[in-house]
């Protein structure tokens, strides 16, 4: 038996009401419209590891991230952190769970309050979680954190607009670290950055993982970033997890037809000349998803069963996939 996972997500579902206002609906005689952004997603993340969720727009990856950090409540399903259920925790236990799970946001230009000095930004979690109240000690901590992320202590007097995108993301990371977290949810942390800066940030995140024994939940649409950072990868399509596998294994032997398509869609920037099947079709409207397996209209292996039944995740072919074709060996 392996140790208990640090994060366990069980049958997580989130629906959004995207209907028009009540009056318009009554006049136009339209029913309520419900968008299922996340549909019965389950996965586990072990301590000290990196788990990545990849998917295209509308796959629900950011919604999952928000539920894990408790910025959004699940419609159903459970999230356990270190064995405790997030939604059941109260008072001090809840506060401590909150502290242990922190987040790094996508846009370093929006994630730092433009009116605050960097020192105050980084110190905010320290005061909010009551980790330290002595001003001088907080200042020392802030300076230490700034140098941890590759900036200097004097930078705490500056405002966010005085920094480049990469430096801002470093500040955001320092802020997340100031809460002494064990688990970091990283929502597209480098998608707003240039590649050479992205490399700096990814390297920094790897260093921090080793130094502080952090566990990462990585959210990204960029397969190459995910491959570089994650131990395990979960592929999302229209709110559902279609395949979960070890990073190496997933790239070497993708099983689910969507995973295969996604890998084939990545431009070959190294010009290795790997063989690829051309991509076809587009992501359907998530408000009105296809029946059965949501991928069936684009899938060359789809049959009648795929059109009617929704596949559940099963261990097949050294992977965990939700696909009837894989189950039945129809490839």
């Amino acid at each position: 038996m392996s140790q208990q996972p640090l994060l366990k997500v069980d049958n997580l579902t989130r629906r959004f009401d995207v209907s028009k206002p009540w009056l318009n609906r009554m006049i136009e005689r339209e029913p309520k419209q419900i968008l299922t952004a996340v549909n019965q997603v389950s996965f586990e993340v072990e301590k000290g590891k990196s788990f990545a969720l990849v998917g295209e727009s509308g796959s629900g990856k950011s919604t999952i991230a928000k539920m894990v950090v408790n910025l959004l409540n699940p419609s159903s399903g459970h999230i356990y952190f270190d064995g405790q259920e997030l939604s059941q925790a109260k008072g001090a236990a809840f506060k401590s769970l909150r502290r242990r799970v922190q987040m790094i946001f996508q846009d370093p230009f929006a994630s730092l309050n433009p009116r605050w000095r960097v020192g105050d930004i980084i110190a905010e979690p320290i005061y909010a979680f009551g980790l330290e109240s002595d001003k001088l000690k907080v200042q020392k901590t802030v300076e230490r954190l700034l140098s941890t992320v590759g900036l200097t202590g004097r930078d705490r007097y500056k405002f966010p607009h005085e920094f480049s995108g990469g430096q801002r993301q470093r500040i955001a990371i320092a802020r997340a670290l100031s809460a002494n977290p064990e688990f970091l949810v990283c929502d597209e942390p480098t998608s707003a950055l240039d590649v050479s800066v992205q490399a700096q940030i990814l390297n920094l995140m790897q260093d921090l993982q080793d130094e502080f024994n952090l566990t990462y939940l990585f959210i990204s649409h960029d397969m190459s970033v995910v491959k570089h950072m994650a131990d395990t990868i979960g592929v999302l399509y229209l709110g559902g997890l279609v395949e979960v596998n070890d990073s190496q294994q997933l790239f070497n032997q993708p099983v689910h037809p969507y995973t295969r398509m996604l890998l084939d869609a990545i431009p070959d920037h190294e010009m290795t000349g790997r063989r690829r099947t051309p991509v076809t079709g587009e992501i359907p409207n998530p408000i009105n998803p296809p029946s059965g397996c949501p991928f069936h209209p684009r899938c060359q292996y789809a049959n009648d069963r795929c059109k009617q039944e929704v596949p559940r995740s099963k261990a097949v072919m050294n992977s965990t996939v939700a696909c009837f074709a894989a189950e039945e060996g129809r490839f």
Partner: protein
Amino acid sequence: MSEKTNVTGDDAKPVSIWHRALDSDLFHSFIRKPVIVASAIITLAIFAMALFAPWLAPHTPFDPSSLNLMDGFTPPMTANQFSGNEYVLGTDNQGRDILSAIMYGTRISLFVGFAAVGLAALIGISLGLLAGYKGGWVDGLIMRIADVQLSFPAILLALLIFGVARSVLPPRVMDEATVWVLVVSIALSDWVQYARTVRSSTMSEKNKEYVQAARLFGVPAPLILLRHILPNVMGPVLVIGTIGLALAIILESTLSYLGVGIPPTQPSLGTLIRIGQDFLFSGEWWITLFPALTLLVLALSVNLLGDWLRDALNPRLR
């Protein structure tokens, strides 16, 4: 430019606020527009004149003992036919020096203006923040009240509030509280603008990631509103406030002119204009003209400043 250059910040040293202000885009946009500079100077001069009226004014217009009825109706720049006293802008029917009356009157007008803007902003910002952040029925309720409010003309509303106050409060209290009743009635007819603007800014700010980050740290909602969102929605409020000041001064004058505002014993600009209008057609034009000109210049300068501020703070128009 479609591509923004990165600010490295490596070489940036802490600079003084003065240096930053003088080097800012706002200051440069200011200094390049002579009309705006002139407006600012005039506005400041009028503010100073009002603020230091007790020391600057040649007479004390509201002290009955210093008034000489014989001095009444002295035209500007001419010696009075009885006393031989000369007044730069002439006197009114009771022998009050118009220049001093304007100085003191502007003082009252500005006080009412600032107080009304302050109160309106306070109400509007608070309700706007609440509506924008909470959303749902709170938002619905506050905004519907605002809509109803907007369907009444401001002046009608102010008249109404003033009327209610007069019938509810005993006359003695009412006399002393007139200024405050005026402030409240102007503020209550003006808060909607602030509330609407702050609400929409709040709704866009609250979805920004820095607010989400603060929520993540468990910062309570009132603190998020006060420390995070409020500083970031104040830009447009400043613009509305400036233009609102001009509007409030005009509204105060209008009310006083209509006779529901400041009593003649302590005349504001509007009261002065009203007093003067009785004599306009009997040849004593100066009694009404000079206060009216002061009001015009003041309102115009403040308005120009507000317009400029709106354009200068709007990145799309820059």
